[in-house]
């Protein structure tokens, strides 16, 4: 069944069938013709993904972002942020990285991170002349910092299957998260130098900056409020996304008086389309994941590694390769639940600490979130940036390289995670 799935999916992709539809059709094809199982399985997997409470944060963070930035306030904020961040080469791009570290300190999900920061920062970066695809690549990569910096939903899941302490995992994630951030900032700076996105405007006086800061303070306050709301347990991340919309609406209605019913409607429908685009891929991936699991592909592959590979360095390398392959179609939670129980004893056999293994798995599967052709943060970012998968993929490689270096360090340097 898996072979039929892989072949039919490849053919559909070559025909330029949209990825989400291709996942659905390929899994239906494989299940019906090669397994003798009821087709209802496909629909059930699609349905199960729509019942996801945390995914509700996606449309609302996007809506809050467009409401804030679409009006008068947006112009003030953009002017201010441009004046400040353009002092450094690649500063506007690096803003996403820094913001991901800060946002990651309160959010546990890369999806929330990509949608919340992307919908605010990508339109602003595009206006400063950065290509949409570059912004999209940067945003899809940076969002992964979120699940390394505590709190982190994938690390919580890993603790469930590995029996390690959540607190230990959270502590261990901090250094790799910061390391990844530093690497990505250097990467942004390098891209800006190489492509001539130079610092353009150093002219603003302190007085002018202060004026702009004051004018844009309601927008600058929003991320601060989001952080405080999460940190002090005012509401869950999903609820915070809704509170952000209410705040943005309140500002528009009472302070700036620039909202119209038509603009609100457009923004909500925009958020709806972006949600539909991302959810279709997540739903289709779930159906594909069901087939891989039913055929016991990950289990067999891991058993094969255990039998054939003996050198510890090569075992770690094979685990990483398997994670990269499985992480392409599979979402983080099922991949962790599937491979965690297989890898924990395998790692123990070569003396690898389960905490280090957890960070390696989460970072590796996090990279899968933007490895083409299927990835959640990749789709969110490309959708927000209004660009294509192909264009984003071409901009992705420097970020990808940096992430792989950090992954190699986490995999082979225990001191990074065990201190």
């Amino acid at each position: 069944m898996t072979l039929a799935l892989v072949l039919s999916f490849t053919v559909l992709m070559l025909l330029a069938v949209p990825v989400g539809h291709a996942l659905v059709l390929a899994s239906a094809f494989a299940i019906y013709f090669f397994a003798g199982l009821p087709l209802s399985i496909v629909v059930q997997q699609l349905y199960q993904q729509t019942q996801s409470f945390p995914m509700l944060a996606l449309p609302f963070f996007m809506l809050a972002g467009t409401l804030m930035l679409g009006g008068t306030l947006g112009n003030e904020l953009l002017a201010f942020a441009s004046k400040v961040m353009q002092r450094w080469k690649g500063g506007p791009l690096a803003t996403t990285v820094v913001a991901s570290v800060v946002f990651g300190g309160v959010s546990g999900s890369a999806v929330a991170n990509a949608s919340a920061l992307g919908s605010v920062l990508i339109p602003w970066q595009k206006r400063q002349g950065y290509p949409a695809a570059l912004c999209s690549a940067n945003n899809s990569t940076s969002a992964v910092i979120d699940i390394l910096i505590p709190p982190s939903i994938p690390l919580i899941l890993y603790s469930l299957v590995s029996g390690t302490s959540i607190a230990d995992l959270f502590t261990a994630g901090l250094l790799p998260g910061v390391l990844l951030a530093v690497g990505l900032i250097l990467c942004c700076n390098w891209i800006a130098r190489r492509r001539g996105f130079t610092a353009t405007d150093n002219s603003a006086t302190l007085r002018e900056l202060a004026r702009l800061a004051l004018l844009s303070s309601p927008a600058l306050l929003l991320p601060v409020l989001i952080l405080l709301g999460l940190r002090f347990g005012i509401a869950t991340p999903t609820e915070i996304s809704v509170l952000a919309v209410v705040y943005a609406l309140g500002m528009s209605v009472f302070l700036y008086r620039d909202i119209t019913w038509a603009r609100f409607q457009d923004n909500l429908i925009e958020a709806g389309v972006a949600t539909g685009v991302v959810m279709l891929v997540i739903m289709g991936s779930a159906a594909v994941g069901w087939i891989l699991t039913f055929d016991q592909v990950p289990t067999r592959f891991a058993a094969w590694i255990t039998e054939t590979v003996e050198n510890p360095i090569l075992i770690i390398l094979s685990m990483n390769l398997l994670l990269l392959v499985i992480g392409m179609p599979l979402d983080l939670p099922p991949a962790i639940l599937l491979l965690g129980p297989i890898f924990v004893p395998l790692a123990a056999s070569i003396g690898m600490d389960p905490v280090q293994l957890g960070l390696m798995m989460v970072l590796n599967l996090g990279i899968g979130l933007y490895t083409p052709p299927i990835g959640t943060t990749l789709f969110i970012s490309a959708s927000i940036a209004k660009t294509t998968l192909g264009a984003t993929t071409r901009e992705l490689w420097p970020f990808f390289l940096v992430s792989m270096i950090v992954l190699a360090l986490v995999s082979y340097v225990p001191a990074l995670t065990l201190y």
Partner: protein
Amino acid sequence: ATTMTLGHNAAPGNPRGTAADEFARLVAENTGGEFAVRVAGAEQLGNEQSLLTSLRTGAVDMTVNSQGSCSALVPEIAALGLPFLFDTSEDAFRVLAGPVGAALADRFAAVNMVPLGWWDNGIRHITNSQKPIVVPADLAGLTIRTPPDPMTIDIFTTLGAATEQISFGELYIALQQGVVDGQENPLTNIASSKLYEVNPYISLSGHKWEVSPFLMSQIRWQQLNDDQKGQIQAAADAATTMQRGLIQDSEKTLFDQFSADPNLKINEVDKEAFRAASAPVADIWTAKPFGDFVRQLIDAAKA
């Protein structure tokens, strides 16, 4: 050999998973290799709600489920969670071995499922981040997360707590950051999901027991002859005994482990005060459309 699929949501090493593996081994042994069972745990083939639908379409042959997800299809089963209905799991199994269990099996048959065994989901206790809960009044001012289960909501509302719906995936962070103060679960879940790391007060309220039905798809069951049915039921019976034993052991071990942990404060509650304060819940449930079943259950539990 015919391969059947057993799906469940538990992590490896959990009593459910261990007993499911044992069942698979016994089926192969009892049927002389005529049948094999492929066990897929950890929600690999779908969450509990999805597995139940798969059971009805025949996509999956067997599942182990929790009481809460089964109550979507068989609402009567939620009544097993009436507050302080059973003092021990043994009391519950005694009742389920009688007419109450037969009545439930009939209800499962109506939705195309055959119960192969009543597994133990454990007795539930309250944890929170603020203080030890000894009497019901201690719950006042605390926000307790409950699963979307009408019985649990009724119990905690009646006891005077504020209840909040938070999905299990968001629970740890919600407890850590204080969106809610506490939650309720059996010791096994409190341990496996590390909830004690953020909820140091564990109060052994034992307010509610839950069953974990081990179900088979009727579509597959009807394809079996009597011999095969007998062999599979025998394997299920042995796995059931094993699962119940594992839960008892694990609750004992966890109690000792939590008691020995200097960071945790574990305490007994005034059970009589809780029993009295939660008594009105039974009235709410006997007034429901399946009130006859609820009365039958209460009478059987008292006998």
